[in-house]
């Protein structure tokens, strides 16, 4: 119909908008991560921290911060997983090491991934991990146990009113059959630093 032809331009523009918005829906996924990373919303802690400025490690003796550790197993994750100490007091600027204990309680080899989340989320920018077992996956033989290290330093710029930081780890089974193929998909590339929905 001649009539329909005259509408082609409008229709193409609108179809373009439709496809654009469909793509935007998917773009929200990485945007969401970027947004959370920039703003520190969501308790996503940062990746490995390189000490480039020696001043970071000058200890501020005047203040003490309580750092608490909590652990969760994701559903169907049978491992034993707990912090060796539940809470320590540190001075800002003090490089501190703590251990987490994990044991594969099953009779097969399994791979696990721990995902961190810090609360309150405002503290995220001031909590630097120089080393963390969460940067890698953990592979344990049947009944094997392991002590996993975390080294961190609390930034001296930490706002005064933040006196307690709680770091939570959730342990995920990486070879869970229903996520068997997830390793290949782009969604999981940034796996280390994703947040956990344990609220």
């Amino acid at each position, binding site marked *: *119909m001649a*009539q*329909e032809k*005259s*509408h082609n331009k*409008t*229709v193409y523009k*609108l*179809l373009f*908008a*439709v*496809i*654009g*918005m*469909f793509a*935007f*829906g*998917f773009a*929200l*996924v990485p945007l*969401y991560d970027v947004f959370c990373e920039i*703003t520190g*919303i*969501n308790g996503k802690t940062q990746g490995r921290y390189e000490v480039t400025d020696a001043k970071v490690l000058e200890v501020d003796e005047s203040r003490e911060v309580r750092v608490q550790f909590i652990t969760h197993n*994701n559903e169907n994750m049978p491992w034993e997983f707990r912090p060796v100490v539940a809470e320590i007091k540190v001075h800002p600027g003090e490089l501190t090491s703590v251990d987490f204990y994990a044991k594969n309680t099953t009779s097969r080899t399994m791979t696990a991934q721990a*995902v961190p989340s810090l609360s309150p*989320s*405002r503290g995220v920018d001031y909590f630097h991990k120089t080393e963390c077992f969460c940067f890698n996956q953990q592979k344990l033989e049947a009944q094997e146990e392991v002590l996993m290290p975390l080294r961190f330093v609390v930034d001296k710029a930490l706002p005064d009113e933040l006196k307690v930081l709680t770091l939570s780890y*959730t342990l*995920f*089974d990486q070879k*869970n059959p*229903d*996520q*068997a*193929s*997830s390793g290949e*998909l782009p*969604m*999981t*590339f*940034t*796996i280390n630093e*994703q*947040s*956990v*929905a344990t*609220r």
Partner: protein
Amino acid sequence: MSATVDTALDNNTQSDHEHHGPAKGIARWLFTTNHKDIGSMYLWFSFAMFLLGGCMALTIRAELFQPGLQLIEPEFFNQMTTLHGLIMVFGAVMPAFVGLANWLIPMMVGAPDMALPRMNNWSFWILPFAFALLVSTLFMEGGAPNFGWTFYAPLSTTYAPDTVTYFIFGVHMMGVSSIMGAINVIATILNMRAPGMTLMKMPLFVWTWLITAFLLIAVMPVLAGVVTMMLMDVHFGTSFFNAAGGGDPVMFQHIFWFFGHPEVYIMILPAFGVVSQIIPTFSRKPLFGYHSMVYAVGSIAILSFIVWAHHMFTVGMPLFGELFFMYATMLIAVPTGVKVFNWIATMFRGSLTFEAPMLFSIAFVVLFTIGGFSGLMLAIAPSDFQYHDTYFVVAHFHYVLVPGAIFGIFAAVYYWLPKWCGNMYDEALAKWHFWLSFVGMNLAFFPMHFLGLAGMPRRIPDYALQFADFNSISTVGAFLFGATQLLFLYLVIKTIRSGEKATDQVWEGAEGLEWTIPSPAPYHTFSTPPEVK
């Protein structure tokens, strides 16, 4: 509704490629490209869905009549709440407005038909299949979707019944249908207005639909995207919403509500348009503040994109997020207030009469405002921690949707039905319909405010004893409201079959192109465009 259109005079000059009247039998409805036929089909379909979704609501209310589990299993209860919500939103309210758009927009802008008549046929006929797919899940193993109309992950992914796949395809089809409908509306309005019909002369119903159509184009694809991600999580091992694989269930809520909040305006803006047509007619005064009405609708639409997280105050947002979404949400109340002010100012010192369309419109203004106020209460982030996921939210959105969207649709049907079928409806019966609906609806939903404030959670099949009284009142109201709608069905059929002949203008104070053509509207109208001064 257009049964009598068969016999309608068709004395307009026709261009060669158009038919001279409707085809006979079922083929007319299957293959029609006529905007009036398609409009009628949309409206009938919507009414069927309204009754189906209504039966589900009554099942819910029957179970909640008393504390304890009496009639249905909790699992089935969840399927009922889910399907009720989905059917009412996507099957009743949205198609009804598309039906009105089909009937009215060409007649209001002086166009012979919708811009893309064949696509129009498609966008309607997809719908029955989409809903057949959705409703058929009730009879499948594992039962229908049970995760609520908001289908939050992981309830709708990790823990979903197998039928979730049918749900996803159903939503895809509804999305395609709405998008095609929206494209059609925009093309019609932008390209097919009669000479002289400038944008700022368009009736408000046309304006609100133009803006609604843009909202649809913007957010239906996002909805399609989010269900596609669910599909991939369920079947292809991705982890968009699965924390175990690096995804985030909270992100589901963000994407869903990015669609969801504009969606609630998709359901109310056309009703704003309807009421803005009706109130001036029965006040015998022009609409107060036409320009501000148009700008208000535009700003509501734009603001609706930046308030979505008011549905998520309790997920653990940082303070800044809570504040931003709280103030942005409250900001929407300003243009909404402008509209309410203008409707009231239109009535002020008018010579009012209270025929059924006007009664529904006045009830719309009053009761929608109550819903707006409860919305404002919910928008206060610190108090929302108390109200969230309680019956207070249920009360809020039913106050904006039932006397808002649904009363808007009733008002529109009474107002234009004489134009569509050529007969006046029975005013006495229509008043009965209004008052019974009004009483039933308030009985059903007003007590829910108190229940919510007292702490009754939503989406539960059983409740603590202290909520018993308000719940039983609410159930009585719901059955009254539901039964009354059969009266409406009877009334509409009666009007199509018989009744006093309507004049061309139908209502004494009515203005606009649609009132210049004969009643009933001929099968083809405005084949030669009218001149608008």
